[in-house]
Each structure stands twice: as structure tokens, then as C-alpha cells.
């Protein structure tokens, strides 16, 4: 049975983080009777614990609901929930490519924020019909009229007919569904053409192999079809197709215009890449759908097990996570200070945090992360280019002709009062001001070019605190630019500690080195011997501090009952030591490795 195209609506819900996207999706599932109320959990579509806890969406989801509209007709809605964070912009763009429309959710109290703008741009670029929705109107601080103005002024989207809704109370959700029926166009496509389907997400299922979430653009696909992925040139047999409601429900086929899942039986998620095109091996097509690109990590960090015995478990854990996350890239790394570990590449800082947390929580690992760094392009004399993921790989300064570092185009939205504060902060972080637009009387958009390496320090935290939390930030990769960069080494007791070295702009090296030495002096506890801390470039020492030798560390009283206390104290001391890393004979607490990030206080 082929679904009638005019009764299909494919749409996404897009929003700035925390504007209530997932809760709104919950209400839609409830109102359409897709999920019985008793099975409802908060943020149903966020299936990972970590997604629910942090209130963020990491993986895309596609749910099919049937909606009987006021006109008496029943429509098939495919709701695609997209990740809301800039780290996952590419995944968002692919999800949007699978839709004809988007519901743009804006918080009635917060108004338009950076990711609202960014997501709206993505939706417009994908030629989607946008339905603005002002959410959380049940809150006393809601200002729907102001937000409407911001949407019209800032995004040039007519907001007269914006849906006023509350994901919490369910108010306005019916209006939204009717608006979807009338405003979002039905999909178009050629049911008789060879199969072309877009993969907008994929994940690994331990029992069935890789499952792809797809949008059928032309033709149809069913169980038993012999298919090919065009970009990876992988062939396989379709084991099952179906839709999620939200439990997976097998269907005889997915036809033109439909969204659903496809079980490939493949074992490696990197064979089923987001953005790739599926076609049939026999009678298929050869032109892929537009927009595919390889996802590349932007941020790198060293992950080391605190206990050397956890190296193998860490490797296995990374292997397991990679099954589901092709953007996670890693290779073994050896540090003199920290032993055996891995250099791991991430899409961004959130991605990094999420992975680290999952490794620790789901796999019970104790990890030490070195300061994140970016991929530098180092050109040797003679022209050879090296992609540098770790400061350790930096060639001798004499061999280097120039170094380039990745720059971002950053978009910052703030109330006009904070323009000065953002200017100061961003210039200090080597940002170059591009332009500034007034989106409305209350919102200014500033555009910057800023090195990624500065952004992954505590820039976002600083931006938030310098603007009393008003600023919102979005960024995209711009390109590589030459910079005057040097490698700064930190020496403890005269020995360079590879895990503490980092790459920094030459003009900032002295200041960073000085502050970092001071920070480390506070962080490293007194030991049985003096520990000199030095910051150096090449062999030249820029700054020095000394942790004095410990002179007294004893509980003087030790009578009957004190002995128990003493045991407890020694146990605590032992536990404390466990959280430290012995580098040579110096006990270094974990915070030391993150101190580089906090050098601006």
C-alpha cells in the first residue's frame, strides 16, 4: 500500500537549547494518542539517560504519529527531533533536509537567541516552511508580543500567526497540529523513479546491527531489497523497514515521502553515514542527494585512565561508543607523565563532556582529561604540512615555517548594554570584530572571527558571566589562518610534563605561563621535597614558582579513641592520593591538567 503523499507531513522542531523542544514533542505524542499517558516519561524522545538528565538532545529521533485533523482527514506526521547544540549542526542540517517544514520554538520569556537564529537560518536554507511557536506562555514572565516582534525583526519570519503554546500544560498544541496540516507542504517525489533515500541518522543496535533513519525521496524500499550506500559504496540486504511510534513498528515498505527506519544488519556504523544516499543495487540511481559531507572533529583531548589497569577497558569503551558515534575519533597516545591513553577527537566541547561522562558513568572508568586542543596545521620548511592534534607532536621550532589554526565565525546575541563587555572579552581572546546588527531594540547580533582554540578555553562561561547570562552564542567553522603560535612547556622538578604543555599565541605565552605557574602552585600539594614549577618555551624559562617541601603532617594526639580516627584519616589520605597522578615522584592532582583552562581569573 503506497501512502498518499498529500496526507504526509514531515517536520522538525528546532529551538535554542532549553526552549522546551523535547517537552513539546512529548505533548504532541500525548495529544495524538501515540503514547498512552501512563507510559509517558519526561522527554520521551531523549532515550539516553544523559540526554534526559542534562535536558539536551544528542541523537536525532524520528517518530510517526497519525493525526486526525479538524477536516476529518487522517494525516501521517513524521516528527524529527534534532539535536539542539552547535556541536551537532551538521546532523541538524541533515535532519532538516528530510523535512518540508519546521516548527521554530522560541521561549516566551527568553526570546530569540543565537541558536534560534542559527537554526532558523538552517531551516530557511533548506527551504523549509517555518511555523513560529512561542513556548512557555504559561510562565508569568512570558512576553509573547515582544517575542513576536523579535521573530519578525530579527529573523524576518512573519509571526502574526505564531502559535502560542505551552509544552508544560499542553495549551496550543492542537493549534500547532492544525497549523502543520495547513502550512507545511506535503512531500513531493517520484514514486516510480529509482530509490533515493537520505540517511539523517544512524545508530548501532546490538541485536540487529546498524539501523538508519531515512527519508525516502524517490521510489520505495522494502525488506529484502539489495541496497547500496553511495558515499561509502557499501552494499547490504534490507532486513526490515518500519516506523517508530515511538516503539519500532515493522512496515511492508517505506514509500516516497515517508520517514522511517531501515535495519541494515551491518556491523559498523561508519558504513552508514549521516547525509549519505541509499539506492538499490539493481535499477538504482547514481546521483546522490545533495549535501553530504564527512564530519570532522574540531576539538581534541587526551584521555588517560587514572589507574593504568583501565587502559584496555577504556579502549573497549571507546570502541563501543564509536559503534554509535562516527564523529568520535581516537588513536592511542602515550604520555611520559600519564602513561598510555588515547587522543580523542570530538565535534565540540559538549560532545567531549558527554563522551567523558558516559565513559565514566556507563563504563565505570576513572579518567584524566588533558586540556582540549584543536587541530593545528604546521607547515615545515620545505612545505610539508602536518595536522597537529596534540602539543606533543609539535616539531622543533627551527623546522617550522608557519602554523595555521582553525578560526570560527561566531555569532553572539546580547542586549545592547553588553556590547562593550563582549567587545572587551572577545578582543582579549584574539577575536576580530566583523559587524554588528540590531535585530530589535533589545537584541544586538555581533559577528566575530575568533580562533577555535580561544573558544574552547572558558570563553563561553566568561561570555555568560560578563553578560549576566544574557549572551547566546553560535559558531561555525570558517577556515585556517596563520598565527604566531608557540608550544609552552610546563616543567615540574625540572622535567617537562608533556600532558601539561599547550600551544598558545606568542603574545600571550608569558602571561599564561606566569598565571599557570601560580595556579599550579596552589593546586599541587606540598610534598616531602621542594617542587619547582617552570613555564618555558624551547629551553627559555618564562616563569617559575616553587611548592615548598612539607614540614609537618602529623596528628599529634593518639590515644584510645584517636586510633580509630587516625585509621580513618589515613584511609582518607590514601583515597586522596588515588585521585592524584604520580608524575615521577610528584603527586599531581587531576585539577592541574585542567588548570590551563582557567588561567584568566
Amino acid at each position, binding site marked *: 500500500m503506497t501512502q498518499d503523499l498529500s496526507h504526509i507531513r514531515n517536520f522538525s522542531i528546532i529551538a535554542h537549547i532549553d526552549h522546551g523542544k523535547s517537552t513539546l514533542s512529548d505533548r504532541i505524542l500525548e495529544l495524538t494518542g501515540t503514547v498512552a499517558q501512563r507510559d509517558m516519561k519526561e522527554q520521551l524522545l531523549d532515550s539516553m539517560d544523559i540526554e534526559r538528565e542534562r535536558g539536551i538532545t544528542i541523537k536525532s529521533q524520528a517518530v510517526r504519529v497519525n493525526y486526525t485533523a479538524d477536516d476529518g482527514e487522517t494525516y501521517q506526521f513524521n516528527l524529527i527531533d534534532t539535536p539542539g547544540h552547535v556541536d551537532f549542526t551538521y546532523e541538524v542540517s541533515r535532519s532538516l533536509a528530510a523535512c518540508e517544514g519546521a516548527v521554530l520554538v522560541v521561549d516566551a520569556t527568553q526570546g530569540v537567541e543565537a541558536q534560534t537564529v542559527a537554526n532558523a537560518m538552517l531551516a530557511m536554507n533548506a527551504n523549509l516552511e517555518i511555523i513560529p511557536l512561542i513556548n512557555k506562555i504559561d510562565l508569568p514572565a512570558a512576553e509573547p508580543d515582544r517575542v513576536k516582534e523579535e521573530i519578525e525583526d530579527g529573523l524576518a519570519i512573519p509571526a502574526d500567526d505564531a502559535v502560542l503554546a505551552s509544552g508544560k500544560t499542553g495549551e496550543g498544541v492542537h493549534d500547532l497540529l492544525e497549523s502543520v496540516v495547513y502550512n507545511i507542504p506535503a512531500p513531493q517525489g517520484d514514486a516510480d523513479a529509482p530509490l533515493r533515500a537520505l540517511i539523517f541518522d544512524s545508530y548501532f543496535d546490538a541485536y540487529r546491527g546498524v539501523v538508519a533513519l531515512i527519508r525516502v525521496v524517490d521510489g520505495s524500499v522494502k525488506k529484502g531489497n539489495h541496497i547500496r550506500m553511495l558515499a561509502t559504496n557499501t552494499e547490504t540486504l534490507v532486513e526490515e523497514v518500519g516506523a517508530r511510534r515511538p516503539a519500532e513498528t515493522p512496515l511492508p515498505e517505506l514509500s516516497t515521502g515517508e520517514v522511517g527506519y531501515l535495519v541494515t544488519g551491518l556491523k559498523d556504523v561508519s558504513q552508514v553515514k549521516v547525509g549519505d544516499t541509499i539506492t538499490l543495487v539493481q535499477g538504482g540511481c547514481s546521483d546522490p542527494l545533495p549535501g553530504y559531507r564527512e564530519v570532522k572533529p574540531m576539538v581534541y583531548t587526551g584521555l588517560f585512565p587514572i589507574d593504568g589497569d583501565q587502559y584496555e577497558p577504556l579502549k573497549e569503551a571507546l570502541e563501543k561508543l564509536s559503534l554509535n558515534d562516527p564523529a568520535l575519533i581516537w588513536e592511542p597516545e602515550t604520555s611520559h607523565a600519564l602513561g598510555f591513553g588515547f587522543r580523542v577527537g570530538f565535534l565540540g566541547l559538549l560532545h567531549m563532556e558527554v563522551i567523558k561522562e558516559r565513559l565514566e558513568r556507563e563504563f565505570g572508568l576513572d579518567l584524566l582529561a588533558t586540556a582540549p586542543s584543536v587541530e593545528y596545521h604546521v607547515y615545515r620548511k620545505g612545505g610539508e604540512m602536518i595536522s597537529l592534534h596534540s602539543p606533543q607532536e609539535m616539531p622543533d621550532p627551527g623546522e617550522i615555517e608557519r602554523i595555521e589554526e582553525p578560526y570560527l565565525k561566531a555569532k553572539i546575541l546580547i542586549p545592547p548594554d553588553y556590547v562593550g563587555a563582549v567587545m572587551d572579552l572577545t578582543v582579549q581572546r584574539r577575536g576580530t570584530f566583523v559587524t554588528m546588527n540590531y535585530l530589535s531594540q533589545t537584541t544586538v547580533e555581533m559577528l566575530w572571527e575568533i580562533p577555535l582554540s580561544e573558544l574552547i578555553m572558558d570563553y563561553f562561561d566568561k561570555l555568560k558571566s560578563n553578560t549576566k547570562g544574557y549572551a547566546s552564542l553560535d559558531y561555525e567553522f570558517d577556515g585556517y589562518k596563520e598565527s604566531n603560535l608557540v608550544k609552552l612547556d610546563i616543567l615540574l622538578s625540572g622535567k617537562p610534563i608533556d600532558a601539561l604543555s599547550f600551544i598558545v599565541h606568542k603574545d600571550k605565552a608569558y602571561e599564561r605561563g606566569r598565571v599557570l605557574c601560580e595556579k599550579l602552585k596552589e593546586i599541587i600539594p*606540598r610534598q*616531602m621535597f621542594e617542587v619547582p614549577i617552570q613555564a618555558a618555551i624551547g629551553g627559555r624559562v618564562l616563569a617559575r614558582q616553587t611548592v*615548598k617541601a*612539607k*614540614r*609537618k*603532617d*602529623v*596528628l*599529634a*594526639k*593518639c*590515644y*584510645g*579513641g584517636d*586510633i*580509630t580516627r*587516625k*585509621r580513618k*584519616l*589515613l*584511609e582518607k*589520605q*590514601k583515597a586522596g*592520593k588515588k585521585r592524584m597522578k604520580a608524575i615521577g615522584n610528584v603527586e599531581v592532582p587531576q585539577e592541574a591538567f585542567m588548570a590551563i583552562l582557567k588561567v584568566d581569573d
Partner: protein
Amino acid sequence: MPHDPYQALYLHIPFCVKRCSYCDFVTSAVPSDSPEIDSYIEDLCMQIRHKSKEGELADIKTVYIGGGTPTHIGLSRLSLLMYTLALSMHLDSWVECTMEANPESLTENIVRDVFALGVNRLSLGVQSFDDEVLRLLGRPHTATKAIEALRIAQERFENISIDLMCGIPGQSTATFRESIETAIDLGVQHISVYPLTIEDHTPFAKMVLRGQMPDVDDDMEAEHMELAAKLLQAAGYERYEVASYAKPGYQCKHSIAYWTGVPYLGLGKSAATMTQNCDRRMRVKDGVVTDDLTPAQMRAEDLMLSMRMSAGVSEEHIAYSQELLPNIIPCFNNLQKKGLVILEEGRYKPTELGWLCGNELYGDIFDLAP
């Protein structure tokens, strides 16, 4: 469980005229005429008689009445307690029987009567001979009062110990030196020198949190402890434990019992009892088991405590412990390398550094037993 006989008895008197600013002992400020004290002492006496009936006091060699402030409860209650004790065990003259006393509540009558009833050692809570320091500590007495109390005590007692504190923020090295010299001049036989520890939930801890007082300075404490060692040893006191100095023959036997794995019975609120046989060592406090150790842990604990004392442990003892603690030889070699321990005349002894940085030393020994 069947257990080795107790050889040390501790009686806790949890009452004081007021709480000092650094104190986290189990005690409370209760007026000396409070009936609460009467019923506590009656109960304590019942427990003594009960333990006596069970035969648990037959092998007691040292008694320590501590607090709190035992002298705060007054002569008649102290007499009752001592009568009960004398009737419940052999309180012979060779049994070391110490009572803690505070300068503000030690009277001639108490000195005379408790001495007559069998107390033969007095530990006087002096802490300092500097009034400014005493005020800061929240002590209820002055330096003059302390000297007066000491003179009264010396009329009967020859075995007297005093406590002195060092490393108190605001205490200069000069005033600490004066306190040590005064103690020497007064001719006490035993001196304990404690660096101030700021314990949680004490007024001092709150003051440090609020920034009204600096935290203890480990360097200053180390300096004071070294100074005390120098002055006292020059005056003929032996340092037999990290914080304890005594004229020859006046070491505190009760304390040594704690540090040498001798089973002890504690009676009264929060007093710890250590019960053991060759397979197991337990500590119990207010009916709750706080420690339950295996033979290996017992051995490690004994070693750790031995290393608080100047005598240290013999090579034979170390060799003998190897069966239970397989890593003991490399551990002691490593401690020697770190300069915490020295091998002298067939014994491993703590060095000055081993004393000052004892936690480093004890931690390594503690790790020997899983």
C-alpha cells in the same frame, strides 16, 4: 569473643566548666552542681563494679581518668569514684593511676584526697603560660592560676605531667619558648607538646571559615615542635613519643599501652574499648564497633603506632612480621630512603622528619595490610 585480658582502664568524665575554642572532645559545659553529673557518676560506678564482677579488671596495670575535666565534678564525686575503683580492683601503688586536672578547679582538698585514694599521677591541662594565648584558646584560667595549681599539686604528687600547645595562630615562637622554659623551671616530670589542630565543628573551625582567624601554619608548627624537642632534651627530658617528653622513668605507661597493642577497657560516654585475641582486634565506642581488624591489619597498626615512639621497632620484629605483611622489608627500605626512618642499633626508628611528617610514614605502613 574470648579475649586477652584488659590491662589499661580509661574512665571518661565528660563535663567542663566551659568548652574551649579548639576542643572537639566529647564533653559539655555543665554547672558543677548539676544532678546530671551525679547520675552519670553513679552509672559509671555501677559499670566499674559490674566489670569487676566479671573479672575484667583483674589484670589492669594502668588507670586514666580523663575528660572533660575530672576536677570540675568536685571532691565528693571524685571520692565516690575512687572508692568504687579501689574496691573493684587492686589499686596498688605500682598501678599507674592518672587523673586529668584543670588549673581552675584543682583544689588543695582534691589533691590531698585523690592522692590518698590511689591517684598517683596528675596531668594538668596548662596549654600555655601566656595569658594572651590562653584567652585565644578560650581556656578558663590564667597563667598565674596554672602555676598556683601546679604548686598545690606538687605538695602531694611527684609524677606530674602538663600539656602545652604550639602552632597557635598569634602565638610567637618567643612566647612558646617561654612556656617551655617555665614548665622546665617548675620541675614537672612529663610534658606533652601538641600542635594545634583545627577540628571540624569547633569555634576555631568556624572562625577560620569566616576568615576571622588564619588556618594553622604547618611551618610554624614544625618550628615550634623542633624548638620544644631541642629545649626539653637539653633539660634532661627524653622524647619517647612524637609529642611526649619525660624525665627518665616518668614515661606515661597508660599512653604506651595504647601505642603497643595492649587491650584497654574504656568506661563512660564515648570511651573507646579495644578488645582482641590473636585473630581479631575490635574497637567499640558507645556500643558501636568502630574497628574490626584482621591479624595483618593488627600487625600493621602496631607497627604504625610503634613508629610514633622513639624506640621504633626491632629488625627481628620486622622480619617476624613478614609472614603477615609480605611487603614490609621493601616498605621500610623505602621509608629509609625517604629519610623518614633510620636503622640504628638493630632498630628502625623515626627520624625528626619521620616524626614531623608522620602521616607520610604511617600511611605507607598502613598500606601494608589490605
